[in-house]
């Protein structure tokens, strides 16, 4: 029986690690691809400081309903340029909730033959006992994710 508590994704990108890494740490660039179609990440609200102790903050807003928004605040604890970004991510959901969900995040950028990059993403845990605030945060985040996913289908 498998009881996975951590999300792991491995994916090959047809670009060298320097470019893929930059697409994650450059605020302007991450805003161009992060989140499903139908949501925008305003450049003026984005902040990215990829160094140990630095933050990356993004706001994701529904194009059709500006009140539908999420904020993602990543704190970096490990940074190796073009190779590794690790830290924790505080995700806040829709207005009206005070909840924040904290994930640990690890992104490894591995060079592959032919100028490609293998990205290894680990995010979790999906198992820790949560306080009331966090439960609210989960609820709002996943309500939002639900709507995100419906829109992206």
């Amino acid at each position, binding site marked *: *029986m498998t*009881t*996975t*508590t951590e*999300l792991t*994704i491995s*994916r090959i*990108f*047809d*670009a060298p690690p320097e*470019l*893929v890494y930059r*697409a994650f740490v450059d605020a302007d*660039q991450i805003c*161009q*691809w*992060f*989140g*499903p*179609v139908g949501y925008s990440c305003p450049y003026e609200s984005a902040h990215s400081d990829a160094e140990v102790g630095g933050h990356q903050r993004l706001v994701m807003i529904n194009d059709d309903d500006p009140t539908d928004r999420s904020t993602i605040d990543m704190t970096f604890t490990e940074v190796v340029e073009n190779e590794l970004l690790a830290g924790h991510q505080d995700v806040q959901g829709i207005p009206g909730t005070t909840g924040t969900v904290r994930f640990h995040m690890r992104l490894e950028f591995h060079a592959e033959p032919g100028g490609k990059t293998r*990205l290894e*993403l680990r*995010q979790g*845990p*999906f*198992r*820790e*006992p*949560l306080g009331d605030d*966090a*439960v609210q945060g*989960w*609820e709002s985040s*996943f309500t939002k*994710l*639900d709507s*995100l*996913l419906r829109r*992206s289908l």
Partner: protein
Amino acid sequence: MSAPDQLSVIFGALADPTRRAILARLADGDANVTELAEPFSISMPAISRHLKVLEKAGLIARSRSGQWRSSTLQAAPLQEATAWMEQYRQFWDTSFDRLDAHLRRVQQADAEQAGAEQAGAEHGTTQRTAE
């Protein structure tokens, strides 16, 4: 009770390695407390406490009749938890499809810029030669 409340209970129950091992054992078939305690160096009361947590999370059902209560794995809550994480996976997959397209644009722009710089350099050389 909203769904996320139940999910937090489920994830709390899954956070313990002994409880995960108990679930793995039950995946092979129903078992009573004695059978479940066998592989572990902990007391039966401790196993009973773990079973209560799993039961509260809806991950197992325990028969109420007889001296030896038998535990049965309940798969549905696990499927709910898994489905939840799958939504995150889909979120990333969708974003990464967009990242693919973004990287193609960036590489194309870099190539065009490199081409323009090369053309400029050649032009400069020609000019210097002419001087």
